[in-house]
């Protein structure tokens, strides 16, 4: 009955939601919506594609500012909203970031406001990953020194598009759902 405009899950409302501007009353209606409308993902991609200043095809959003996009050369890479490219999405994008590690109480106190109620420096370091392009803070890890970087998310893109969305990607392949992070560190070691 209701027109696309009238629906709470309208493209307009989704855009506002993404910008954090959708009034709480509408957000609640969205949360209550079950099941979610069929075309949600496609609307989402449209909005995101309109939002970013570049043209590469967005395949998936993986963080506030990070997207997996398909380049004209058919590669699938992680790209920041600012346009900076962080390499093959199968390699932990943190390996393409600028890294700052907080180790002292003073450095901790800059981001956690109540001393001593913050992680104990004898067991923890705070790792911050910045986009080399726009210097935005893309990720934070609070772990002991020496802990391998956490690969936040490796999506099974082919399965997702083929089996869940019923619209297969044209460049499907075995290789796409593999963690290749260690190949990168191997290269680093060898190029020594």
């Amino acid at each position, binding site marked *: *009955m*209701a*027109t696309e*405009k*009238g629906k709470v899950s309208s493209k*307009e*409302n989704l855009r*506002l939601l993404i910008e954090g501007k959708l*009034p*709480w*009353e*509408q957000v*609640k209606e969205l*949360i*209550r919506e079950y099941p979610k409308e069929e075309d949600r993902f496609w609307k989402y991609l449209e909005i995101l594609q309109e939002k970013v200043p570049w043209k590469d095809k967005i395949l998936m959003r993986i963080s506030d500012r990070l997207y997996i996009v398909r380049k004209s050369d058919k590669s699938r890479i992680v790209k920041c909203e600012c346009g900076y490219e962080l390499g093959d999405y199968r390699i932990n994008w943190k390996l393409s970031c600028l890294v700052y590690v907080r180790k002292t109480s003073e450095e901790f106190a800059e981001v956690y406001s109540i001393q001593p109620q913050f992680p104990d420096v004898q067991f923890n370091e705070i790792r911050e990953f910045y986009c080399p392009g726009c210097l935005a803070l893309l990720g934070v890890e609070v772990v002991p020194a020496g802990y391998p970087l956490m690969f936040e998310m490796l999506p099974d893109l082919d399965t997702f598009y083929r089996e869940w969305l019923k619209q297969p990607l044209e460049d499907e392949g075995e290789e796409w759902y593999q963690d290749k992070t260690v190949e990168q560190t191997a290269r680093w070691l060898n190029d020594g």
Partner: protein
Amino acid sequence: MTTSQSKRYQIAIDAGGTMTDCVLVDKDGEIVVGKALSNKVNEAESYMESVANASEYINTASSEVHEGTAICTYAGTTMLNILLTLTGQKVGLLTTKGFEHVLYMERALTWLHLSYDEQMRQSLHEHTPSVVDVRNVKPVAERIKGPSYYPGAHIPAGSVLVPLREEDVRKGVEELIDAGVQVIGILFIHSYVNPAHESRAAEIAREIIQQRGADVRVVLSYEVCPVSMESQRAKSLMVQCFAALPAQAQLLKVEQAAKSDGFAYELTTFLSYGASVNVRYHRMYESLISGPAGGLIGAQYFLNEINNIDSIICTDLGGTSYDVGVITKGLTNIEAEPVFAGHKMNLPMLAIDSIGAGTGTLIHVDTVLKRVELGPESAGSMVGTCYKYPDITIGDLDLILGYLNPEYFLGGAIKLDKERALFEVTERLAKPLGQDVYEASSRVLDTLHSKMRDHISGTMIARGGNINDFTLFAYGGSGPLHMWGVSEGLNVRATCTVPWAAAFSAFGVAAADYFHNYQKSVLCVLAAAMSDDAKLKECEALNQAWQELEEKAYVEMEAEGFSRDNVSFRYGIYARYIGQMASWYAPVPSGRIGSIEDMDKVIIDSFEQAYTSIYPLAARMPESGYAVTVAVVQSYADKRKPTVRIHELSDKEPSKEAHKGKRAVFFEGEWSDWDVWEMDPLKAGNHIIGPAIIEHPMTTVVIPPRKRIEIDPYMIMWFK
């Protein structure tokens, strides 16, 4: 003195946000109904109009009625509407240092408004907006010791642990006056066992207020609600400060008007559980839902006692609020710590909950985002753009869609401007949304109806009833008008209304027993090991409490015109097994205990009966002994209740003169001509087949296509 028994009339009032209804009952129980638009500024005026309007039907002057009136009970939703529409006084709070956020944190009870499945989705949890700006809460260093689970084993309850820091009080009061608050509430921890700090703080506050010549009231939590649990007590205190004080001012005006028109006694109002109190009552917040309570009691009297329909969802839709109450298996449950409008407070009240929704509810249209939101504000008696209100309301939509008759509002006493409404709704709703005006309007009604349905299921969850076993009863001026929309898709057993739905709450106030409720805390411990003598000694405390309360009752009832011989008593106790924390109410056969036999009969048997009526036998623990915690006395005076007639059934076909013609109505996307009937000529047995509309000076029944109304011998109109 002439006691009220010689008087002829009873006046029962339900002052809603939009209409003030008057039910006048004469000696034979015959009733007439009067109505007037509520006057929020001065309720005395709408009160007088409403009484005068009723008096006209019996060709009498209001003064004659007032002189002949024994009981005048003024119930309503004034206070409730202030709370729902957040239009109360600017309140400041002085509280124990360290508890400044008590109203902001509100105990993390962020799910009270949600249904069973939604409570689980904690992403939907949210706080009910506090009626006090967190910046207007000021800390005062002080602490008093509370009671202990191990009596006698620690510092006595009420001992001062931290003396009152008077400079904190002064600083706080000064700041609050600077902030321009109209009333200051004071809540200190454990003040209910020792109010010394609250009283002293109040003294200081009043001094400063006087020095500064400010007009600020001071209210103490122990005066308003002297029971444990700071968060709930704070809520009660805030309702008293925010909503009850302004409401009480109105009640006193009304009493003044009634007296100057010849009424001889004191005006009474309704507590939220149906007991009557004098309008000077200092815990006026306890009458928060006096009006809706009337409706619930009326439904119990009329549908349950007389028609034995045992499980009822009572829904009162007025211009401003939508009140939903529940009667389960004939019982109206009185809750001591109810959840109401998203607040959990200490306030004995019937199982009723309200939201801001009605024909006066404002429609907000966000022209940028093309979005519609409803309320909570209400046009109240100004109805909408079709009458005196600047913004569009639900009433405007009912009008342009053809549900309401612009020529017949209050029987034509008020003309509604359909053209204007159409213009305004087009400009403010349809154009911004880029939709057809009628399409857009019915979409907004859909939203209203689903909001009301949500409120019903929410209330049902809170009261733990299965909606399929319940009958939906729609009343209030707008109840029958939206009954079709609310009942749609709601799996209730049946849906009905009555011809006098518009004034049903007032009818309920008239039908209610006239009684006062008195309670006194006692501690009467009957441990298994105790000797009979020891037990009887314990019972003395109870005997004394009952007697005290009886005396109190005599005095108050006298002022309302009832001599001692016209007052009768019922007795009760709150009791528990020793060790338990909750106590249960048990009515008891007598108010005196003279022997062990009495004790067994009056206390033990009554308690066990009440307890096992709720719990399986396995929950009993007689071996641990009993403790009586509260003595209860209820003082009753006879009064004439409205009589209900049984009518002969006439044919299904309504008589011709009831038919007023046809009217174009917009429904499910198209216009069609609907039959229009006049309510009064309709008879028991008549079937009114939809699409049709039944009009009455005070309400309108909408019957969509494929639906119909069947009227039974009690004139109950069944919607099928």
